[in-house]
């Protein structure tokens, strides 16, 4: 056994189960930072021990045991200032025997961690970074890049949030009943957020690649749906992400708008999974469909083009009408204007767009949709509109908008 083998095995265990291991460890006393530290120690210990003993048959179980021992040492030294009673109680109730360690049951713990990260007592702005670190195992410095803040600032925010979870004792539970209904949207929102952040680099990476946040977020969404059972919006999120990911091949090379993509490039397995999840969502929906179900259904309409050859704009129109009624966000309203532009003509789309108040900071999709509608109208302002839409974004999308600006120049 070479050091490189061991290092690879330890890293693989770290990547595939970091979030689950942290969740199991932290559930005992609510101390996420301590859980992360002890897990880090366990990884270091593994690098020393495994070359001698070989890689254990259950690496995660081994890591949990070592980390748990470190945790106990810390609790004992803290016992003088005793928080000990409930600590021991918590540890006893959640002790996992390494041989019984089943990664599927560990997902329950990860679910609890999701609800902790999206707890109403946690500042909404820090929920997503916290989830990226405590559940998906990204480092503060990587998260800082995503949120465009200095690494030290992000690290500080995360430390504060974890301290708050421990000191205010936010419980590690999956809420039930009314409380679940109240808190699930924030959890789904955050998982969706993780996906969106990862979407940019989802194209190149394979679905199971640990460096793909989008892939990790998708797994999390599926886990959530499966473990929660009959939550339509959880199934809808899984469907929405599967259908979005099915088009990741199209994120290579030049940008192509969704309705102009070649459906043969789409991943039919993922589409089938997405459609199954969406049927599941519909089957457990009691009242009117929720926001995510409508969004997933719109993705499914696009996916259907691979059989029918045409985009069913009337169906999209109905779904987006329902969506802007229950969730009139800036994004959903701009998307609706684009669909109206296809259904009732570009003038109607522009009229719809003009009813939307754009924030002072601007909203890139608004500029892009406006430019597209102007060009469909043959309006001479289209070229300039495409140029300003391009300025508000980067990468291949900007390049695409610039090319349309050039093409519409009169």
């Amino acid at each position, binding site marked *: 056994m070479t050091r490189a083998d061991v290092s690879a095995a330890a890293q693989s265990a770290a990547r595939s189960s970091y979030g689950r291991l942290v969740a199991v460890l932290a559930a005992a006393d609510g101390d996420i930072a301590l859980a992360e530290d002890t897990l880090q120690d366990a990884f270091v210990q593994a690098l020393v021990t495994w070359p001698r003993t070989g890689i254990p048959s259950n690496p995660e179980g081994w890591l949990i045991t070592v980390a748990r021992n470190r945790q106990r040492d810390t609790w004992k030294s803290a016992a003088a*200032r*005793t*928080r000990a*009673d*409930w600590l021991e109680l918590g540890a006893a109730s959640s002790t996992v025997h390494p041989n019984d360690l089943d990664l599927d049951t560990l997902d329950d713990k990860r679910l609890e961690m999701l609800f902790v990260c999206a*707890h*109403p*007592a946690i500042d909404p702005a820090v929920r997503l970074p916290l989830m990226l670190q405590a559940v998906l195992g990204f480092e503060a410095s990587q998260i800082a890049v995503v949120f465009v803040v200095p690494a030290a600032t992000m690290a500080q925010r995360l430390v504060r949030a974890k301290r708050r979870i421990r*000191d*205010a*004792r*936010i*419980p590690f*539970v999956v*809420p039930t009943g009314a*409380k679940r209904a109240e808190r699930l949207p924030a959890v789904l929102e955050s998982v969706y957020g993780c996906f969106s952040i990862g979407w940019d680099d989802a194209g190149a990476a394979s679905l199971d690649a640990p460096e793909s946040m989008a892939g990790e977020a998708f797994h999390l969404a599926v886990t959530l749906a499966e473990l929660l059972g009959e939550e339509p919006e959880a199934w809808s999120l899984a469907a929405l992400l599967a259908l979005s990911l099915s088009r990741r091949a199209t994120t290579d090379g030049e940008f192509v708008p969704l309705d102009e993509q070649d459906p043969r490039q789409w991943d039919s397995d993922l589409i089938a999974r997405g459609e199954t999840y969406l049927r599941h969502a519909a089957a457990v929906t009691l009242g009117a469909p929720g926001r995510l179900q409508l969004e997933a259904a719109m993705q499914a309409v696009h996916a259907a083009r691979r059989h029918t050859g045409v985009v069913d704009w009337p169906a999209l129109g109905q779904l987006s009408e329902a969506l802007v009624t229950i969730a009139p966000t800036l994004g959903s309203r701009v998307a609706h204007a684009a669909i109206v532009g296809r259904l009732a003509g570009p003038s109607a789309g522009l009229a719809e767009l003009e009813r939307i108040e754009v924030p002072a900071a601007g909203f890139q999709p608004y500029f892009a949709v406006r430019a597209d509608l102007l060009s469909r109208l043959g309006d001479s302002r289209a070229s300039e509109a495409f140029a300003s839409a391009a300025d508000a974004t980067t990468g291949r999308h900007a390049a695409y908008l610039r090319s349309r600006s050039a093409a519409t120049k009169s």
Partner: protein
Amino acid sequence: MRYTLLMHYAEQTGATLSDEDMAEAQRAFSAYAAALHGAGVLIAAEVLRSSESTTTVSRVDGELRVQDGPFADTKEQLAGTFVIDVDDLDAAISWAGQSPSVSWGAVEIRPGATFTRDGVWVMNG
């Protein structure tokens, strides 16, 4: 785990609060205290007199200064406290949400750090 629920609200005087309103508030607080006690979570509770009657003491440049009025002169004042002993923040939030005062003010939930038992400090938790 002990939490202190701090009730903050704009103070009402006899002139702005009718007798019926006062009686209604008292009934609501009686029911709330009884519910907390019945659940076995109530450690102590206190509703304070208005800040018109409060006195603030501090030491400035070595001199003890006694002042008429509250420490912070804000519209909302600390009006009362409930010390409760519950499992976790969710339980504390649930009790805070049932306080009659949430209808006219905010309830702040502060986890305790230490408290005294027979004059000796004990860690909370």
